[in-house]
């Protein structure tokens, strides 16, 4: 009886134990999102690993993300083509494409893993057909319009960075970024509007579609898969057919859940499930000469994961914490701090035109502090409103727009080109001003002080002209 039960358990586990592919998918998801404490703290990781693009789709605004998203980076690079060519992103895509192609989708993409898990929910399933095959070309349209044309048009012709796919569509960004950050940053609710509403609807629809249709986001919508698909015929790693053995029975294609027409075409994600259906043993997984080094690869992978977990969660310093430690409280009735009702400690910064902005000199004036960056579309759109308000009330308002400390651009030239005429500064490497005002890891941010120097508003997100006027009236 005991033996029988043990055998049953073994059989149950045997049919359900995770495959190598599933383990690698889980590993990738954990490695990409090694900054686990970010989920609890609601803070994104800002260590230097963020300069590295991972192969799979993983939003860099996810609190767990330790690396950059290749698709977001591509759109940003296209939007700043007039400044310099994004050779780095181009090289990354070429490298991943030539090495892996859509093996990335099948093995190394957290979004792919999520879709496969959602597909496991019991329901009637929609099988692939010629119609779904046609629908799979939609991702190329989305790639062209949202990931190429919109970023290039707005970035180069209008001077406003707009990563179209991230901004208007990406359900992965909504799930990882918005859903990851908002629960621990409830103040951010105030910036949610039509774009979030649209993206939330897309996210729900995409998840629902994945219940009924295998990897529907991957097959029909994902521009990253569309790019990697173009490299599929050339990629070194992936499933390959031994044409000498293949008798073209079509079992591999008919049993594949992706919209492939042949093994290894632009829709193939190299998951390797077709090998189980091939009676000729004509399909093999090619690792590009690494077949005999699997154990060494696994060892390196484990060491890398442990190092990333330790570094991102315990060792990487936070610039903001450093800045806050250096604060010295000033004399005031209100407690020193950056929350509404508290009083900001005095600080002085050198503006980009050489003048100095000293908060201590602004007593009796309403103070507007704006945190921005040239690469932030909404920041660039709202700054003319600040400029207008400042010049209409120059005697009563003190204003400073502080650019994030990280930039590869000549901010002074940028500001002059735009014709804005308010005091501008660039934060120092310690993020002193961002630290004092609780500058978030997200932009834009506006801080308003009343005549007593007390914070009456400190919010991330764009402000409208009406909101600025209302804040000024409130602060008077």
């Amino acid at each position: 009886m005991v033996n029988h039960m043990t055998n049953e358990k073994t059989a149950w586990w045997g049919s359900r134990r995770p495959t190598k592919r599933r383990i690698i998918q889980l590993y990738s998801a954990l490695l990409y999102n090694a900054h686990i404490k970010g989920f609890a703290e609601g803070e994104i990781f800002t260590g230097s690993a963020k300069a590295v693009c991972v192969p799979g789709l993983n939003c860099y605004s996810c609190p767990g993300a330790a690396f950059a998203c290749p698709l977001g980076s591509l759109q940003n690079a296209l939007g700043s083509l007039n400044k310099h060519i994004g050779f780095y992103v181009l090289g990354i895509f070429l490298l991943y494409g030539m090495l892996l192609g859509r093996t990335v989708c099948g093995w190394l993409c957290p979004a792919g893993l999520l879709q496969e898990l959602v597909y496991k929910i019991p329901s009637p399933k929609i099988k692939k057909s010629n119609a779904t095959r046609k629908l799979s070309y939609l991702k190329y349209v989305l790639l062209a319009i949202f990931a190429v044309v919109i970023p290039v048009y707005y970035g180069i012709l209008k001077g406003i960075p707009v990563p179209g796919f991230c901004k208007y569509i990406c359900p992965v960004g909504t799930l990882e970024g918005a859903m990851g950050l908002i629960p621990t940053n409830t103040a951010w609710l105030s910036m949610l509007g039509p774009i979030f509403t649209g993206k939330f609807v897309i996210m729900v629809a995409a998840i629902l579609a994945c219940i009924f249709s295998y990897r529907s986001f991957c097959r029909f919508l994902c521009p990253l898969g569309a790019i990697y698909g173009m490299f599929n015929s050339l990629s070194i790693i992936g499933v390959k057919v031994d044409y000498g053995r293949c008798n073209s029975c079509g079992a591999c294609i008919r049993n594949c859940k992706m919209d492939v027409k042949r093994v290894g075409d632009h829709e193939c994600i190299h998951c390797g499930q077709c090998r189980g259906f091939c009676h000729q043993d004509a399909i093999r997984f090619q690792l590009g000469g690494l077949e005999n080094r699997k154990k060494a690869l696994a060892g390196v992978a484990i060491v890398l994961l442990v190092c990333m977990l330790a570094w991102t969660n315990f060792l990487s310093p936070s610039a903001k914490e450093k800045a806050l430690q250096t604060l010295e409280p000033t004399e005031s009735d209100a407690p020193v701090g950056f929350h509404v009702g508290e009083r900001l400690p005095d600080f002085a910064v050198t503006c980009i035109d050489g003048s100095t902005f000293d908060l201590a000199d602004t007593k009796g004036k309403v103070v507007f502090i704006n945190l921005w960056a040239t690469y932030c579309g909404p920041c660039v759109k709202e700054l003319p409103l600040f400029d207008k308000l400042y010049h209409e009330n120059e005697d009563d308002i003190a204003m400073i727009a502080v650019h994030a400390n990280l930039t590869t651009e000549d901010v002074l030239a940028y500001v002059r080109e735009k014709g804005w005429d308010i005091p501008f500064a660039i934060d120092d490497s310690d993020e002193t001003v961002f630290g004092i005002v609780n500058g978030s890891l997200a932009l834009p941010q506006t801080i308003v002080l009343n005549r007593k120097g007390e914070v009456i508003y400190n919010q991330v997100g764009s402000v409208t002209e009406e909101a600025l006027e209302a804040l000024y009236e409130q602060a008077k």
Partner: protein
Amino acid sequence: MDKKRAALIVQSVLWVMTATVFIASVVSIYMSGMSLKAEDPMADIYSIEAIGQRAVIVLPFLGICIANSVLLVVLGMKDENADKAALHVDITKNTEGSPWPADKIRTARMAGIALAVICIIIGIFNGSMRDVFIKASKICTECIGLG
């Protein structure tokens, strides 16, 4: 219709209803929030109170769906046709898939990887790697859909 099929259809109807309730809730928050904003520009469209009110409706749907899914998994109910071959699809013979000879493919791969490495090295020095870091570590809220 057998019991298994009926159970799966009920399950799918539940998921569609839950998704619809989710979408209707977020749209209703947005619509009522816009009305508030028309009267007061400083009013928030989304608030904890508004989300809390809708969550009372949405969460029971989600809970029922999840519980039902777990039940179906435990009972071993799934669409058996899902794992069967798709018969009505166009296919191409695998042997027709490789228009290039193997040596040319190998050369193209090596050239592609060499070009990729060169691009990455140039990118490290021309500031495009720094750009990736900047945009990934100081995010623009509207660019990720928080707007």
